[in-house]
């Protein structure tokens, strides 16, 4: 009886795992099947290195360098905000707050992750953007900076939550040993807990990065979507995700523009894959050294 139940559960979990792999496989297959024909018409070199994106002009130009740079810039800006604050929040919750307050505080931070991205976007469009425009004397508030600030806040819970898990997972024996040797609370935190939790913190950073690169709605609403080269923090930029969201609805199915958008999707896919692999390697490497 017990063994039958065990077998059933085993089969179920096995089935679920296989199904998600199968789904991923299908997504990859379709993505590349739609994207690859594009490169029969346009060389990957002019696709990745071109600075002009006029997909509906005659003749069209398909250069995604401005979007690659835009995605990179916005993501870097978001991480510059989310990583220090996320790690600080994790340490505060895990090391400073009394135990009774930790869970409520952590839940509060995680609620940030539950706010729909369109709400962030709307806030950026009507409040943050115009405020930055007035403060910095810009021609428009729809800039890479606006998008970075919002994405930073959106990625913060991811970074903080994963980093805090890593901090709590550090065994108390390490802290006690450190304190017993005469180290202060601060020294213990900085020299013992942070190094011990490093791999988990890196995992949080990479997850936050994935969140920032993949976010679409918010950047679409606040970044101005201008494929400019070279990009700057105070000018409008366009990201890879926003390009797909903006243009997919109107691109004739099966046409070159449609395939170009799938190619952009494939590039994003490869990026995220690379990010995950590198994240895993870094986390393992850093963790292994400890």
């Amino acid at each position, binding site marked *: 009886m017990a063994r039958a139940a065990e077998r059933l559960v085993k089969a179920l979990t096995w089935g679920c795992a296989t199904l998600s792999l199968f789904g991923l496989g299908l997504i990859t297959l379709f993505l590349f099947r739609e994207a690859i024909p594009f490169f029969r018409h346009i060389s990957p070199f002019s696709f990745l290195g071109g600075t002009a994106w*006029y997909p509906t002009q005659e003749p069209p130009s398909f250069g995604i360098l401005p979007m690659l740079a835009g995605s990179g810039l916005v993501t870097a800006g978001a991480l510059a905000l989310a990583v220090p604050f996320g790690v600080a929040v994790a340490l505060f919750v895990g090391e400073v707050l009394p135990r009774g307050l930790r869970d409520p505080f952590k839940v509060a931070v995680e609620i940030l992750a539950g706010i729909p991205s369109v709400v962030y976007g709307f806030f950026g469009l009507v409040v943050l953007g115009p405020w930055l425009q007035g403060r910095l004397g810009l021609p428009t508030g729809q800039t890479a900076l606006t998008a970075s600030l919002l994405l930073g806040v959106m990625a913060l819970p991811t970074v903080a939550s994963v980093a805090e898990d890593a901090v709590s997972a550090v065994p108390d024996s390490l802290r006690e040993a450190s304190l017993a040797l005469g180290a202060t609370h601060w020294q213990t935190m900085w020299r013992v807990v942070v190094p011990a939790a490093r791999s988990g913190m890196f995992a949080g950073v990479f997850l936050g990065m994935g969140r920032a690169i993949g976010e679409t709605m918010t950047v679409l609403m606040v970044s101005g*979507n201008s494929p400019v080269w070279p990009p700057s923090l105070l000018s409008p930029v366009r990201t890879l995700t926003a390009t797909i969201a903006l243009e997919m609805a*109107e691109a004739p199915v*099966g046409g070159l523009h449609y395939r170009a958008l799938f190619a952009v999707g494939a590039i994003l896919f490869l990026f995220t894959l690379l990010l995950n692999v590198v994240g895993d390697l870094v986390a393992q490497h850093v963790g292994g050294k400890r």
Partner: protein
Amino acid sequence: MVRTAAALGVVLVLGLAGLAGEELTLKGSTTVLPIAQLAAEVFAELHPELAVSVQGGGSGTGIAALIDGTCDIADVSRPMKPSEWKRAVDRGVYPFHWLVALDGIAIVVHPSNPIRQLTLDQIRDIYTGEIINWKELGGPDLRIVPVSRDTASGTYEVFNEIVLRKEEPSAQGILYQSSNAAVAETVARTPGAIGYVGLGFLNPAIKALAVGEGGTYLLPSEEDVIAGTYPIARPLFMITDGFPQGVVREFILFVLSDEGQKLVKEAGYVPVRRVN
């Protein structure tokens, strides 16, 4: 915002679905969406047994759905492209364009901008980066922020053809917005902005400019769009597979009737003929 919400592809199902089993599905351009929704609402009242579903998604999406047989009527703000015709005919679908409304595209600026009129050439120079400051046009010393619909939209295509004469909008830092409402919103919040929206999206927070071609300047108005004198105007179509039968034909005839054309006006567009 209502339009934005609608444009996000919310599926609106009217009537009692599944009772009689008869369905009518419209899909396509977000520009035509307000007309389709209003018409579907009134039409469903006249035909309570019918389930009418109206979806946005864009002209391209609507045409693809018509070809795949997942909608009965494709709403489009541009005629079909040769590649789409070919795809349709290859699949045995024979598209039939019905002119259901006209739309004028208004050139708009921030209400604080003293400029009242521009020629088509001046507007083109702004979007191609030849003119970058309002003082070059007799306005204040203020950097121009051009705002555009995304380059895949039907509204952009019309603007590109009539105003830009198919040139690339190569000005630095053009803001691309995903809907007419977002263009209006951005222009209303940016003192240096210039943008373009369908007539139905004009509101007191933005100022329409008189547009000049060959010496005469015209503010966008219904009369001038119907008369063909306002230079930036376009037709809006509903496309069916072949000459329609049954409820699809009834629906098209309803949209083209005086009552339907009044709804076109109510949605903020220009009827194909004068109706009172």
